[in-house]
Every structure is written in structure tokens, then in C-alpha cells.
């Protein structure tokens, strides 16, 4: 079992989660984070609206799904297709991290293993 964590633009969440379901992911969860990578900062007003400051850390959403090892390629591809801005992509489109999960348990039934996903 592997965990796939995709950090994407918040406005892409609906597309990415739809794509996950399309390729047969059994579930996922997502949450808002603030993230910074190579993306250039945006200018925001501070204080009473006179001054501005540059913030490089931007709102992102991290979508996590645990899948079977052999689903990695399909899922990653699906995420990329859904999360990319246009055909070219744009800085800040996000990253995907893969790590291994040793077990999964379903609370409702105590089942564990790949069936749970």
C-alpha cells in the first residue's frame, strides 16, 4: 500500500477528486494548507490597507489517498492531468509525494489490508 499526497491549487480540488474516483481510488481526504515552493509571491495589503507585503506562501490543498502499490502510475497520471494549469502547466501547480503505508484498517469492520482501500 502506498500513500499518495498531492499538493495542488485549491481551485483544482474538484477536478482532482473526480479524477481519483474515475481511476478507481477507494477514498481520499483533503485539507487546506499554506505552501511555498518556487512560486513567486503575491502582494497583499497589510495593516490598514496602505502598505503591502509579498507573501510567497500561498493557499494550497493537499489531497491524500492510500492505494495499492500497482495503482501508483495510474493515480499519479490522473492527478497530474487534473491539476495542471493549461497544457503547459504553471509554477505553483503543485507536487505529489509517494510513501509507503504498512497497513490499513477499517474502523467499522476491523478489516485490514488492501481490501480496506
Amino acid at each position, binding site marked *: 500500500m502506498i500513500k499518495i499526497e498531492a499538493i495542488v491549487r485549491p481551485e483544482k480540488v474538484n477536478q482532482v477528486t473526480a479524477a481519483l474516483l474515475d481511476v478507481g481510488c477507494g477514498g481520499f481526504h483533503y485539507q487546506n494548507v499554506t505552501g511555498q515552493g518556487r512560486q513567486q509571491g503575491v502582494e497583499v495589503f497589510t*495593516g*490598514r490597507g*496602505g*502598505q503591502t507585503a509579498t507573501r510567497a506562501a500561498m493557499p494550497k490543498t493537499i489531497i491524500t489517498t492510500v492505494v495499492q502499490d500497482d495503482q501508483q502510475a495510474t493515480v499519479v497520471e490522473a492527478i497530474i492531468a487534473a491539476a495542471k494549469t493549461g497544457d503547459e502547466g504553471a509554477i505553483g501547480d503543485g507536487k505529489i509525494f509517494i510513501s509507503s503505508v504498512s497497513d490499513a484498517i477499517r474502523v467499522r469492520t476491523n478489516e485490514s489490508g488492501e481490501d480496506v482501500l
Partner: protein
Amino acid sequence: MDSGNMAWMLTASALVLFMTPGLAFFYGGLVRAKNIVNTIMLSFIAMGVVSIVWVLWGYSLAFGPGGSFIGNFDHFALNGIAADDGETLIFVVFQMMFAIITPALITGAFAERFKFSTYMIFLVLWVTLVYAPVCHWVWAADGWLFERGALDFAGGTVVHINAGIAAVAAAWLVGKRRNIDRGVEPHSVPFVVLGAGMLWFGWFGFNAGSGLAANALAANAFLVTNVAAASAAVSWTIIAQIKTGKFSAVGAASGAVAGLVAITPASGFVDVVGALAIGIGAGAICYGAVLIRAKVSLDDALEVFPVHGIGGIWGALATGIFAVEAIGGTAGLLEGNGAQMTEQFIAVIATLIYSFIVSVIILKVLDVIPGLGLRVSEKDEDAGLDISLHGERGYVHDGAD
């Protein structure tokens, strides 16, 4: 007082009271989420503490007979005001609301780091030693500025310059907030605008109520108040847009407040053209003042001096410039009465000096009294004042609750 005037003064008093919760949200939205409760509470408790001070001795010091400098204790606990003297009773009420909001305005200067217990005592002392005398000078029949003929229809000096310069004293003495080098993003823009909306609404009571009657003068004051707020909101917004490329909502709200501040002393004296000039000027001047303030090391956290101090000074002088004899009975510079400018200057300077010095003394004294002190500990400041002083988190959205 006839029923119509009384009806309006009852309403106007309620409107001015409503400005203080408005201010709580205006200021509250501007701070970091960990200090929202504290910031709101600084305004809210002023409604409590100052009301008590006012009816016990504040009113008497401000409007009781005395000298040209301050009243006396003749009306302690409203002693000597007859139960059927509606005119005096409603005047006590209306003026009480001004005494509440003035020190609440100051709190923007020391937001996010002031000790709450000290603040409650500060409220008592400041209203007694600064607000009451200045109010007496300007509005009591035997006040020295009133007698000289300084114009302040609804409180440009008494409220805004007074609070603005006290804010400088407070920001200076309490010192800079920790860890604000990156600037502080307002944690809730909606609350800022909500507060501005409540302030704008309540300000109609403030200005149009200050003639103490429901008549043409009140209608004019209402009109120019709205026009100045509007034009300052627009001028601030456009100037900030030209400079940064963005339309700041906090800027629009701040502009509106700046315009309201500036029109306050003028609202019984100028016409709609004067109001446009005052408003557009307020937006530009106060915006510039905010930028300058950001360059000096004074951490007037929510820009009280740039907006209320500078805005109030601009309004006081502009009253001298744009006063129209047909409206308030006094001509201004543009109608050839240059002498009025002198009176306006004197009122501004006197208020600046007196309020600054006495505010400094009060704060210095509070700072050295054992168990008080102005500033919370570093640990409390870092953790946020809500948890550390108030035992409350502003927002609790986690799964556990």
C-alpha cells in the same frame, strides 16, 4: 424639548452607542486571529466602564459649572437633574456615548499587547483627566475654546484629535509588537467592513445628532457626513489602486472612516461642495499619513493617529476653510473669514499638547505601579492575548468541539 427632537436624540444616542461594537469589529478584523477576543473586548468593556464613570462624575466634570478649564462635582451621580428634565437627561446620554467611543479609539494603537487590567484603570483615569477637560473646553458654555469661538460641531478635537494623539503616547510607551516584520495581514476583512458599515451608520447619530434637534441643520449634517465618507472611501481606494494595482477593501473602509473623522467637526458648518473637498482630502491625506507612519518606528498598530489624529486635524482646519455662514452661522476662510483659522489652529494645538502630556503621565504612572504595567509578557504576547488574558479562543472549529 419637543417630541420630534427628543425622538431624534433618542435615536441618535442609540446610533452612537452602536458605533462602539462597530469599532470592535473594525479593529478586530485588522488584528491576528489570536488577538480577536482581546481587541473586541477593549472596545466592549469601554461601554461598561465609561458609562459608569460618566454618570458618576464624568458628566459633571465635563458639563457641570466650574471654570473655563473643567467642571466640578455638582452633578455627581447626576445629582440635581430633575426626572422630568428630558432635555438634560438625553444630553447626558448622548454625550455619554461620545465619552465611550473616544478611549475605545485609542485601543487601536496598543492592540495585540496591552495588559487588560491596566487598561480598565486607564479608562477611568483617561476619561476623567483628559476627556472631561477637553470636552469642557470645547463644548461647555464656559469652556475657554468654546468662548474663543473654535468650531467643533461633533467632536473633531474632543474625540478624534484627542484620541489620535493619546494613541501616539500609548504606542510609544507600550513599544513595538514582537514579530511583525513581515507585516500583519488583517485576519478577517469581512469584520473590518462590517465594523466600517456599523460606524458609518452610527456616525449619522454622531454628526446629525450634534445639533440636538431634528431640523434642517441635522439634515445638512447627515448629507455632508455621507458625502464625505463616500468621497474619502473612493479617493483612498483609487490612490491605493494607482500605487499598488489592487483595490483594497480595508483601504476603502479606512477611507470611509477617515472621511467620517474629517467631516465630524465640519458637519454643522459646511455644504455639500465642502464635504466633497473634505472627503477627497481626507482619503488622500490619511492614506499618505499611513504610509509615513509605516516608515517611522512607532507601532501605532491600527493607525489611530494617521486616521483619527491627522484626519481630525484636517477636519478642524477644513472647517475653518469651508465654513458657510448660511449653514452654521460662521463664515470660513473661503468666505473671507481668515480669523476663524486661528481659532481652529489654537483648538488643535491645545488639544494635541494637553492630551499628549496627560496621556503620557497617566501611562507612565500605570507602568510603575506594582502589579500593573502596560505590557503583557512575551509569552502571553506570542501565544496570543485571547488565550492568555481572556481564557477564550476567538474561533473554535476543530472536530473536538
